[in-house]
């Protein structure tokens, strides 16, 4: 405890006290009141936070963390760097603006990366990833993965072995790179040897027993040709360094192009280079019908633009659904609010019953009712309102989605409307009428303005829920009645383009959060009542 002279509260009191020095106001236990109050307030705050903390932590872990993790996928792109590290490095010095293909160095790097990736079966994953950006890369990688261990580079193995048969012995290699000087003189080969042995060890295989693969010889050849200084390190190496100039070189570029002619396609390389950073805006651009190419950002071809349409449609349909909910919900809420409590509560069960019936069942029920041979058409034909051949088309289009979703979301409109209307005293209406207002004027000028908060609450609730729906539109929406969420679901479970799904999801979530913020500002989240 500090003395009262250093307490800011009492300092205040002293300085403002005109020198008369009245003592600070004290609480019952003798501490200054201000401090005592502050302490009580702090304790109260602490107590409140302690009560909230368990749930907050619970929600953060079980809900917020997963969502954040999911949305983060929309920019992550490490797969290119991780699968083709050397290629990405080598491509940095290649100018994709020129029409020329990358040089032999890049092809060599790609060969090493590809060989190791194919051994680990990672190349096809990368192929799938890059196929989102350029059609055909998927099979290009698959084919090359199969071809890469049959490249003509095994010629180097024979060449080296002709100089000294011990080159073929993996123990030679293990011993060679155990020597730090050699590893320093031949950094690339040493690095590849390291990756190779790491890989073998994860497979529980002994590097000293496995064949030395041609790609290691290729790297050795290439480094020795580049003039790596190995003098005095090992007689075997010195002999090889002297002899490599007599080897006939193998063009790795040619090997790649023989495996698949697409490697000669400038666009393939440009795509790899464009998507080599660990984070990419590519998915987000894709989500707004644009694409990232080597030439920068451009719009997708018109016949592939879909997300713009879907976002617009999702918003348009959500607004329509919200409006329908207001139209249908308002009279019902008014009736409920103006009936005696007991009757209202019984009618309330009719509102809540569908609310608590399985969503799947309600959606299928709408299917049964709305289809051309369905209940509504049957009744209309039976009544003679329409002819048998003129049955109405009410499902697998926007109309079907709007009807089914209005039905599903209507209780979310009625409940907040009802709770607001309950608080409007009926005497206001009577007063207006007794002052000479007609029914309509009394309603429109007196009652309606007071019910607007309820409309606001219900509308935003309905809109937020509608915008994220996907099962109902999937079942009754056909092609024109589906939402952006259907596409997200498709990318998550069928096309496996999780990055794009995350980008679409982020945009959708941003829209919802803006609405939530508006809702909280206008209505306050505390004012929602359910049942």
């Amino acid at each position: 405890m500090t003395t009262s002279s250093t307490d800011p509260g009492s300092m205040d009191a002293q300085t403002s006290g005109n020198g008369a020095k009245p003592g600070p106001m004290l609480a019952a236990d003798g501490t200054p009141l201000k401090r005592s109050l502050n302490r009580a307030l702090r304790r109260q705050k602490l107590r409140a936070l302690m009560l909230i903390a368990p749930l907050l932590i619970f929600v953060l872990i079980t809900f917020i963390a997963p969502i954040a993790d999911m949305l983060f996928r929309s920019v992550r792109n490490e797969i290119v760097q991780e699968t083709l590290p050397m290629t990405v490095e080598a491509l940095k010095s290649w100018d994709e603006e020129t029409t020329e293909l990358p040089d032999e160095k890049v092809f060599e790097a790609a060969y090493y990366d590809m060989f190791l990736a194919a051994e680990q079966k990672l190349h096809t994953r990368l192929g799938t990833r890059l196929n989102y950006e350029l059609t055909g890369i998927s099979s290009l990688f698959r084919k090359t993965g199969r071809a890469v261990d049959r490249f003509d580079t095994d010629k180097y193995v024979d060449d080296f072995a002709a100089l000294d048969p011990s080159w073929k012995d993996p123990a030679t290699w293990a011993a060679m790179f155990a020597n730090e000087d050699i590893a320093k003189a031949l950094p690339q080969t040493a690095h590849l040897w390291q990756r190779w042995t790491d890989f073998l060890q994860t497979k529980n295989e002994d590097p000293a027993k496995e064949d030395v693969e041609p790609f290691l010889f290729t790297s050795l050849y290439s480094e020795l040709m580049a003039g790596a200084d190995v003098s005095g390190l090992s007689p075997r190496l010195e002999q090889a360094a002297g002899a490599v100039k007599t080897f006939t070189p193998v063009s790795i570029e040619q090997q790649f192009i023989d495996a698949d002619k697409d490697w000669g396609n400038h666009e393939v390389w440009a795509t790899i280079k464009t998507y080599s950073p660990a984070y990419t805006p590519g998915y987000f651009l894709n989500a707004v019908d644009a694409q990232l190419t080597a030439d920068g950002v451009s719009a997708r071809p018109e016949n592939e633009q879909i997300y713009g349409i879907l976002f617009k449609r999702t918003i348009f349909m959500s607004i329509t659904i919200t409006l329908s909910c207001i139209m249908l919900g308002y009279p019902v809420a008014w009736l409920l609010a103006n009936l005696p409590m007991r009757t209202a509560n019984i009618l309330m069960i009719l509102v809540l019953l569908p609310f608590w019936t399985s969503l799947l069942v309600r959606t299928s029920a709408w299917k049964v009712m709305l289809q051309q041979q369905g209940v509504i058409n049957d009744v209309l034909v039976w009544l003679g309102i329409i002819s048998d051949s003129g049955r109405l088309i009410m499902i697998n289009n926007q109309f079907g989605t709007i009807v089914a979703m209005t039905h599903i979301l209507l209780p979310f409109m009625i409940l907040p409307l009802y709770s607001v209307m309950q608080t409007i005293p009926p005497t206001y209406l009577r007063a207006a009428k007794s002052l000479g207002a007609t029914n309509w004027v009394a309603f429109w000028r007196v009652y309606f303005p007071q019910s607007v908060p309820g409309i606001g609450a219900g509308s935003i609730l309905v809109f937020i829920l509608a915008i994220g729906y996907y099962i109902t539109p999937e079942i009754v929406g056909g092609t024109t009645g589906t939402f952006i969420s259907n596409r997200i679901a498709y990318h998550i479970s069928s096309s496996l383009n999780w990055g794009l799904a995350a980008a679409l999801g982020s945009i959708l979530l941003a829209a919802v959060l803006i609405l939530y913020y508006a809702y909280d500002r206008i209505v306050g989240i505390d004012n929602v009542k359910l049942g």
Partner: protein
Amino acid sequence: MKLTKALLAATAVAIAGTAYAASHSDMANEMTLVSWGGAYQNSQQKAYVEPYLAEHPDVSVTWDESSAEAVAKLRAMNEAGNITWDLVDVVASDAIRLCDEGLAMEVDFDEVLAPGDDGSTPTDDFGEMLVSDCYIPQIVYSTTVGYRTDMVGDTPPTDICAIFDTETYPGKRSLEKRPINNMEWALLCDGVPKAEIYDVLETEEGQQRALDKLATIKDDVIWWSSGADTPQLLADGEVVMGSTYNGRLFSVIEEQDQPVAMLWDAQVFDLDGWIIPTGLPEDRLARVLDFVKFATDTQRLADQAKYISYGPARKSSAPLVGKHAELGIEMGPHMPTDPANAKNTFIYNYEFWADYRDDIDAKFQAWLAQ
């Protein structure tokens, strides 16, 4: 790190594979089988799961109807290093994807599978059905077209192009909500010779041409996304014809006795079969291998045809295909592979769709949404 884990798991599999040959004793007693649900899963249950359980009363089987999301789920399980499935039923294109990504275990067919009843090796017996090193096919099914007999007048359709003939066959038709199969049929009916279809479909113009052909009936199409849709639509008289799997049509026609008939023209063959996820612990792998050997032998595959009209993937099973278990009708003529039915067929082009799926699908969906 993740890679290391995956590789370690792969190693465990390799070791387990050899260990299996040595001892039969250490087998898990619980298996989670993943399949499609519905009549197909029922045929698997009847034809090989129940007989297997009768022989091994201490084993229990849980079904997970997640085949439709199998690739996504296996990928996530693999990321997490926690494989909860033992044996997964998938279509061939998914199996190829899973195998490519190292999510499915490569299988030495001659070692793991039982030889055919006629003494042929599994490799010969399955023959060209072995489209991937990881994939053990069970059945051949086809996507084809069924129609309401009471809605087509006196001239029932005889070929696939009836789909596009709204003059003769007015009314709605149902097609699958994806480009695969529909694009091929559209080009075929637009006069492209069968052999050239994929060459045409590789080009922008070819894709547009297929979409233009589909556009002629766009207003008359109900697009389905689950196998149960077309049978329901046909039963309701909601569509005059629609594409679906031949087994579904068999069920509507023969079991439910609805006024429906089917076409075999231009049916598209596809396979359905098992994959074993990589990374199973030794005891579970041993159990799965034991089960798979039993479940894909000649007799079991032939038995499956008693419950559903899909053709066994083994050649040696064909002569053993008998009568339907409940209806007592000969199943042979209902097999998509029956020579009378297989006069004009397509085979799902896995290679082509692996490459063009993303691209054509984007165009197809954009076209649908417009």
